[in-house]
């Protein structure tokens, strides 16, 4: 048993060799040897013992029972192996008749009934929380913390005990005082009572040990662990702690100066950090409280384990409280397994914190949406109920298994299993939902853009707008035609340039012919549209401009044609190029001017 640093009182009770003299009548049962070891280096109480018959009763005072965290009986396997809890004996709470009322009894079922004279040896491990009481109850920052432990020197049992001894192991420090009975010895930090022989049943002799313990008493009043399974490959664990230093209350002022200068003397009773032992390959670890990240933490690890050292925001003195949250992600494949179509999660129950006593632990296992057939197997009794939780993109909510247990000590840090059924297809539900959501958004957008949302189809404004739309369409047509005319003009110009380069008069003429035809068609189109515009009342405003445009364009067209003919003529008549240029120059100027006007008009109409 290593040195414990937390407020945990350890109470090891080893009961050896029970001899059965008679048939299983309680008073006939004799505990031939009881050897108790109480480890007070910490604050958890453990009883380890061995008893007879088919059933052996263990008695604890009610006062202790409320702090009883763990009670375990196992066959004796020799010294040093008492902690292997693999083959434990069933223990249950019983209320036998005729026993004192202030005691609570637990019955240990033995593997085989003991015959007369048979003996059987087994270990009982009982762990108690909150068994140490600080005394004095209030100390200053500079004081050391003293605690008091009360017990009976004799093992409280309904049976007669032949030989019994008790050893109390204390932390390596000063012992203020202890009850001296006969046969009391002290070896370093261990106090030995006994052996005492032939004690009657229910013998009791109180002892008190008063000693120095600067081991911080970290008590979590409530811890909520939420384990969320994502089949995409992650197990997210979030743990909320409400921590209190359960040691002697701090009184007077806290001086950071003194604390900082001599932390071991001025602040011996404060606790500075906690260490969490986490599984390997843990990732995305965070440590924060409700007002933000807490920067005082440290994470290191190797392939076998990861350790997280966290310091609270301030050193905790006796009676001070704090609350924080840690969270981390674990790889799914390390914790989730498949068994005959069922899946099961295999993960530790308690908090990963070293030496932490938890008054009330709530473990919530959040299973993926759509899982069913949920069952839990836990190595010790827990309260259990189910909830649902709505999280990212859930429709029906995720099933949550809630396990609740009071008085949890590190010994409870055992694996438990949650079995459930989950179909792989359910995993695709959320992606599909997203795809569908965006798809329908876009479809809605497209539909909205293409649907005429007008309420009244016969109102004057609506009709006017329709008419205006038509006019606009017509004007666009006009513009279109004009633009095509302009393109044709450009083609003509281009043909002229070709002509000047190649001298191919025939090609130029052909281009001219094509352009002529095209322009004629265009002017026909134009007429049609213009007649519509003239008939439409809505166009009255814009009509003069359009007409001007058309007229200008016609002018331009003529000019271009004239120019074209002139140039072609020149080439045909083989007059010098210089001469033709002279003749064309005047025309060209007019054309440029007209073209500018036409373009300006086009823009103007566009603006309207």
């Amino acid at each position: 048993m290593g040195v414990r640093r937390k407020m945990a009182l350890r109470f090891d009770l080893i009961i050896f060799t029970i001899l059965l003299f008679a048939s299983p009548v309680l008073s006939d049962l004799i505990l031939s040897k009881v050897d108790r070891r109480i480890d007070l280096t910490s604050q958890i109480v453990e009883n380890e013992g061995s008893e007879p018959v088919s059933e052996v009763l263990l008695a604890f005072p009610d006062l202790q029972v409320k702090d009883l965290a763990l009670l375990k009986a196992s066959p004796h396997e020799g010294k040093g192996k008492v902690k292997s809890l693999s083959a434990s004996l069933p223990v249950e709470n019983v209320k036998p008749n005729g026993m004192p009322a202030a005691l609570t009894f637990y019955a240990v079922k033995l593997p085989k009934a003991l015959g007369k004279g048979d003996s059987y040896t087994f270990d009982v491990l009982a762990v108690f929380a909150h068994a140490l009481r600080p005394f004095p109850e209030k100390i200053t920052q500079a004081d050391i913390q003293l605690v008091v432990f009360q017990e009976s020197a004799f093992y409280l049992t309904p049976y007669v005990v032949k030989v019994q001894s008790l050893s109390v192991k204390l932390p390596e420090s000063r012992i203020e005082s202890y009850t001296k009975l006969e046969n009391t010895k002290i070896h370093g930090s261990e106090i030995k009572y006994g052996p005492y022989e032939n004690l009657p049943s229910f013998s009791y002799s109180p002892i008190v040990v008063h000693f120095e313990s600067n081991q911080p008493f970290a008590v979590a009043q409530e811890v909520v662990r939420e384990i969320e399974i994502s089949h995409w490959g992650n197990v997210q664990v979030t743990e909320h702690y409400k921590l209190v230093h359960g040691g002697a209350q701090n009184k007077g002022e806290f001086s950071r100066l003194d604390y900082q200068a001599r932390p071991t003397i001025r602040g011996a009773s404060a606790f500075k950090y906690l260490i969490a032992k986490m599984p390997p390959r843990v990732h995305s670890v965070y440590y924060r409280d409700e007002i933000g990240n807490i920067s005082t933490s440290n994470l290191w690890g190797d392939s076998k384990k990861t350790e997280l050292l966290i310091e609270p925001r301030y050193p905790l003195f006796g009676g001070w409280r704090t609350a924080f949250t840690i969270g981390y992600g674990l790889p799914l494949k390390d914790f989730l397994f498949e068994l005959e179509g069922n899946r099961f999660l295999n993960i530790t129950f308690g908090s990963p914190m070293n030496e932490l006593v938890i008054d009330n632990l709530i473990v919530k296992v959040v299973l993926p949406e759509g899982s069913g057939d949920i069952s839990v197997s836990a190595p010790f009794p827990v309260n259990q109920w189910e909830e649902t939780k709505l999280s990212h993109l859930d429709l029906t909510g995720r099933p949550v298994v809630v396990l609740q247990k009071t008085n949890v000590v590190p010994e409870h840090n055992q694996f438990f299993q949650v079995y459930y059924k989950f179909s792989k297809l359910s995993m695709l539900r959320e992606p599909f939902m997203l795809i569908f959501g965006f798809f329908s958004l876009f479809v809605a957008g497209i539909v909205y853009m293409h649907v005429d949302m007008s309420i009244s189809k016969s109102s004057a404004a609506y009709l006017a707008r329709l008419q205006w739309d038509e006019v606009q369409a017509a004007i666009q047509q006009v513009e279109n035609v004009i633009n095509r005319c302009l393109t044709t003009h450009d083609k003509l110009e281009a043909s002229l340039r070709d002509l000047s380069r190649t001298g191919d008069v025939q090609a130029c003429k052909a281009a001219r012919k094509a352009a002529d035809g095209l322009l004629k068609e265009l002017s026909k189109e134009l007429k049609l549209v213009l007649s519509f515009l003239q008939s439409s009342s809505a166009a009255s405003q814009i009509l003069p401009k359009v007409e001007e445009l058309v007229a200008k364009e016609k002018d331009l067209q003529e000019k271009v044609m004239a120019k074209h003919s002139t140039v072609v003529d020149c080439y045909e008549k083989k007059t010098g190029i210089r001469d033709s240029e002279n003749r064309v120059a005047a025309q060209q100027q007019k054309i440029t001017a007209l073209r500018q006007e036409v373009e300006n008009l086009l823009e103007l109409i566009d603006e309207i």
Partner: protein
Amino acid sequence: MAAAAKAGEATLRHAFGNVLSFFILLLIGVLAFSIRLFSVIKYESVIHEFDPYFNYRVTQFLTKNGIYDFWNWFDDRTWYPLGRVIGGTVYPGLTLTAGTIWWLLNSLNIPLSVETVCVFTAPIFSAFASWATYLLTKEVKGAGAGLTAAALLAMVPSYISRSVAGSYDNEAVAIFALIITFYLYIKTLNTGSLFYATLNAIAYFYMVCSWGGYTFIINLIPMHVLLCIVTGRYSSRLYIAYAPLVVLGTLLAALVPVVGFNAVMTSEHFASFLVFIILHVVALVYYIKGILSPKMFKVAVTLVVSVGLVVCCAVIAILVALVASSPTKGWSGRSLSLLDPTYASKYIPIIASVSEHQPPTWPSYFMDINVLAFLVPAGIIACFLPLSDASSFVVLYIVTSVYFSGVMVRLMLVFAPAACIMSGIALSQAFDVFTRSIKFQLLRILGFSEADAGDGSSANVVPENDAVKVDKSEETIKERPSRKNKKKEKEQMEKAQAEKTSAKSKTEKRLLVLPMELSVIGLLLLVFMGAFYVVHCVWAAAEAYSAPSIVLTSYTHEGLHVFDDFREAYAWLRHNTEVDDKVASWWDYGYQTTAMANRTVIVDNNTWNNTHIATVGTAMSSPEKAAWEIFNSLDVKYVLVVFGGLVGYPSDDINKFLWMVRIGGGVFPHIKEPDYLVGLLLLFVETDGKGFDRVRRTEIGKKYFKLTHFEEVRQS
């Protein structure tokens, strides 16, 4: 055939242009959002500074208790023993925005915490603000300038300083509201659409909800309207842009509890009503002018002017008398200190004591807007070429905001968007000139090589015209039946028009082409300047403005040191004191104490009750016995004192001590400033002092030493 191919190409180019600008805008949004995440990456996702903590707390209350409880919320955790009616004294815009976002996300089953939503509200709204800037500048000077301005605004340090992730303050959403209100005003002015006018009133309402700076809008817009009227630019569009805004806007503003009847009663709003009347008079004059013959009109004018002047004089006299009868002339202290920069230091020390209410220094201009300071004048010139209603508005905007930013460093924030818009215009115009020159020169070079047989002068005219033409034809070819598309088309047409006008000006300004070398150098210089701006902005975002101020860090040779003292103290108070304990501290820490420690405070950053603050100031600056009596009478159990002497944290309580004396002395005359100037340090040591009441004093000592020596925690 060649033309057809070209047309197709141009269609594609046009479509590509639209898609490109859409993606540029998207990227600008991403940029605006992500440049503000430095604080989260370098520190953590946490609420910053002081006021954001209050907003965060209010948002928490809103999300927990709903909107109706929020309006009626009487907060007894603050201003003990007075309390504060939160619902009636906060600008609810920010809180409601974040609350709505949270509610929306949660109803979609996306369980984000309120804190996360609050932290990221500001960056999200910065992205919105840059989009709004695009819209506004586009209305003024076209899409190119809009994109440039949006990009500049996305990373302007002045705005970043108030909108990094975690800076959950009113300004974060208010700047967006401000710009969108201006945009809608300009849009209404340009289109004369009543639809936009209504939207404008709603945007104004949002602004009123969000920030007290809404008075800037309700004064700037009337000024612009007046300017338009004076310069003879009155039009029906101006009427539509302004009249509904005043009527609807004032009605809506009066709905906000914190504004209420102030919307019609304080002098800040007076200008808008005056201009409203003037506008109607002018409208009437124009109407009468339209129906009367010129001769009759002259007669009417003389008649009306003589009568009207008398009436106006009478009305104005009454108004002036009314306004003058109130001591502050109907203006609130903060507004007055804007008009008269010396006002606050004379009369209200509490306003003057806030560092962000001080006038800025020149370096802070360079820090906050950087190269924009040089571009703004160029932008103003560009706005006069040609001067439109819209560009005159932005000119007015920048002129007034320069003045205000000169008075109060905080209002640099209002100036920043104006500077971005102006610089965007300037940059885009400059780019326009340079690239046009280069293009022209290049074309000439290419034209010579290509058309050596033809005439060079027309050769380069043709392709340009071609381009413009096909643009047009491409538009005309498309047939769009529905109204929606028509609208879109119209927008496109407008855009095309802008292009065309630029093309037109191209042909007009062909003679103003710059030489090739000069334009290339100019372009390079502009790019260099832009790069410098970006580098500066990133630096400012990363180094200068990201610190949450509750967590301090410093780099030494040993690495990063984190000082988390404030939260350590608040966490201790939160977990280790009774729920109803009262904590006294200087008012700076009031919001944080209520939000982080969840304890009742005596005074907080709201500073609405000068006397109460003066009481605490007096207690802080009194000898121990007197101080104890004051605190005892206020049921104070803990006193939070910040001392940064050993860590080297400058803004601790000794730094603020003079203000405690000044503010205390403002109300309680027995506190005299000169008395304290000598023995300042001595006095502080005494305040910290050996206990009068042992329990009480121990707590002070606790905090005191904790903060003092936190550095050593890290060093050891």
